[in-house]
């Protein structure tokens, strides 16, 4: 059994409630931090832990914290990003739904470290029942004296609230999230200034993912050095992976970074292999935005090394032969999955979710969706594949926020690794009439008899 930091107590009966959580050592890190450490010492522990942002970008959390402007004297804020919307990702919901006090404990310690006295958890509007769970948990914590004025008699004040979004993927981008929290449309801001200098209501603000903040209590209790011992190299600690698609045991898993992709996929402790015993065709390892990997690049990197569940190993080979750990949204495809259809599905998602601010993304995502739709529906043209390549290359890097890149990468990777499948769609429109065309006729067979 591998080490658990976030989910070690998830199976304790009643851990959702304050009493049980407290009896199992909950809120100890608040006592330790507020009574024996200075805010800077907490930041130092988080820096030493090497924990990287678990929302997808993987930026070192301690470094992000150290950027917060403490000199201006303005009020500071911590905002937890619980706007989990990346297709394939459902890990934060699991934490918040089943052990809500862990996040609240993390918010208190992290807010203390940043010197924030008013903090928010921004949760996506669709998770309304989780919003209520958090709201109740906050009230319990407040009643027990962990929130409010003069916490534990240390003179530290903290107000914590949950705020709900209303259905916009883009609000997972930190500046769009801040706009949304200010009661506006979720249009990302141009950086700089970064939120650490001018964020919520122009105050210095740090935005962190649920999973990142939930790891802080352990780091404070056990020290950053201990956390850094878990994992491999610059990929320290544990990571929640949410697995879906054609595998036996879909669900949320906590893994030690450094576990091999092969073991994660096939061990009974984790995914237990492919469902219906069909062969593995492709993998999206870190949420829909990251490049898709074909079967031969999943367990081994291009230079023959074992592929590991780490930031470095999953991106080994760059976009040519690698992908990214991203948010840990692990989507597995078997040979019945049509890559063109899946790419069109993702493109529709990004078109729907583009905020419309930047022309390349607003227009380009629509083009990607339409061209992919016609290829998938048997009306593709030979030149469409080049057209797709050209569109994605013109979106990438040309937008205010990374949504443009996120829309481009899956298309580029699908063409890079599955070009013949696109060609097949264009050349044999009669074979793809049925929506489930690749269930009826596994692609591999037809491909081999290329005409």
């Amino acid at each position: 059994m591998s080490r658990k930091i976030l989910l070690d107590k998830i199976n304790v009966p009643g851990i959702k409630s304050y009493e049980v959580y407290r009896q199992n050592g909950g809120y100890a890190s608040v006592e330790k931090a507020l009574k024996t450490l200075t805010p800077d010492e907490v930041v130092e522990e988080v820096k030493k832990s090497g924990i990287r942002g678990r929302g997808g970008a993987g930026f070192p959390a301690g470094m992000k914290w150290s950027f917060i402007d403490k000199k201006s004297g303005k009020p500071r804020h911590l905002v937890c990003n619980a706007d989990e919307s990346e297709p394939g990702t459902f890990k934060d919901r699991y934490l918040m739904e089943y052990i809500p006090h862990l996040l609240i404990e993390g918010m208190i310690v992290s807010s203390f470290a940043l010197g924030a006295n008013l903090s928010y958890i921004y949760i996506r509007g669709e998770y309304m029942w989780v919003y209520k769970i958090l709201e109740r948990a906050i009230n319990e914590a407040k009643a027990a004296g962990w929130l409010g004025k003069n916490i534990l008699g240390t003179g530290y004040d903290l107000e914590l609230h949950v705020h709900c979004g209303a259905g916009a993927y883009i609000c997972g981008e930190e500046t769009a999230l801040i706009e949304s929290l200010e009661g506006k449309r979720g249009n990302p801001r141009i950086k700089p200034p970064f939120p650490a200098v001018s964020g919520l209501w122009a105050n210095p603000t740090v935005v962190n993912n649920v999973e990142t903040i939930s790891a802080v209590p352990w780091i404070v209790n056990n020290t950053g050095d201990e956390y850094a011992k878990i994992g491999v190299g610059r990929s320290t600690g544990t990571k929640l992976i949410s697995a879906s698609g054609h595998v036996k045991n879909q669900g949320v898993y906590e893994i030690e970074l450094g576990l091999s992709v092969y073991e994660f996929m096939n061990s009974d402790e984790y995914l237990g292999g492919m469902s219906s015993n069909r062969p593995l065709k492709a993998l999206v390892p870190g949420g829909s935005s990251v490049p898709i990997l074909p079967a031969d690049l999943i367990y081994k990197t291009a230079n023959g090394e074992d592929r590991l569940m780490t930031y470095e190993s999953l991106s080994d080979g760059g976009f040519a032969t690698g992908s990214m750990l991203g948010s840990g949204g692990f989507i597995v495809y078997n040979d019945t999955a049509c890559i063109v259809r899946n790419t069109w599905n993702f493109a529709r998602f990004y078109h729907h979710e583009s905020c419309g601010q930047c022309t390349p993304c607003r227009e380009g995502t629509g083009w990607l969706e339409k061209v992919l739709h016609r290829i998938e529906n048997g009306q593709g043209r030979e030149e469409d594949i080049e057209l797709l390549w050209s569109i994605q290359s013109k979106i990438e890097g040309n937008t205010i926020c990374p949504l443009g890149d996120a829309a481009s990468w899956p298309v580029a990777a699908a063409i890079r690794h599955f070009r013949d499948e696109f060609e097949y769609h264009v050349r044999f429109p009669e074979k793809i009439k049925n929506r489930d065309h690749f269930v009826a006729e596994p692609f591999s067979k037809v491909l081999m008899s290329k005409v």
Partner: protein
Amino acid sequence: MEHKRYKQEINITESLMNRINELLSHYPADKKKSALLPVLHEVQDAHDNWLSYDLMDKVAEILEILPIEVYEVVTFYTMFNQKPIGKYMFEFCQTSCCCLNGAENLMDYTSEKLGIKMGETTADGMFTIAGVECLGACGYAPMMQLGDFYKEHLNEEKIDQLIEDCKANKIILHDK
């Protein structure tokens, strides 16, 4: 362009106003606008799950902001409905992972069963069905959102049962 104004009876009850005031207390006194999204959710829930212009104007008045500031938000976020919808809205996730587990076939099944297309409402005003983008339940696919809750691991039998339960008034939509 024709701009249809649907009529809606507005009723800001005392309990709704209390909840709005509670939400307002979560933000600094001079940042009332920040409460806009949570307040719109509450107001929409209390008004048959949709927001007319008259209702949006009322929200603007309560938050002391301009009506346009409410309109631009309502039109941006997909969870706010700008016209009357069915009492029960089945919102099917139609993004990749759900499709790998048969979401499309299930949507067709529901559509056929209720005799309406995606995005439409039944004549009796009971059901609206729609396809929406990723709801963050990929490991429990196929699934849908119904009110404040998720219905997961769906199949045709479960859809039949849900429809029956809705008709028998057995479904709780909001957790208040």
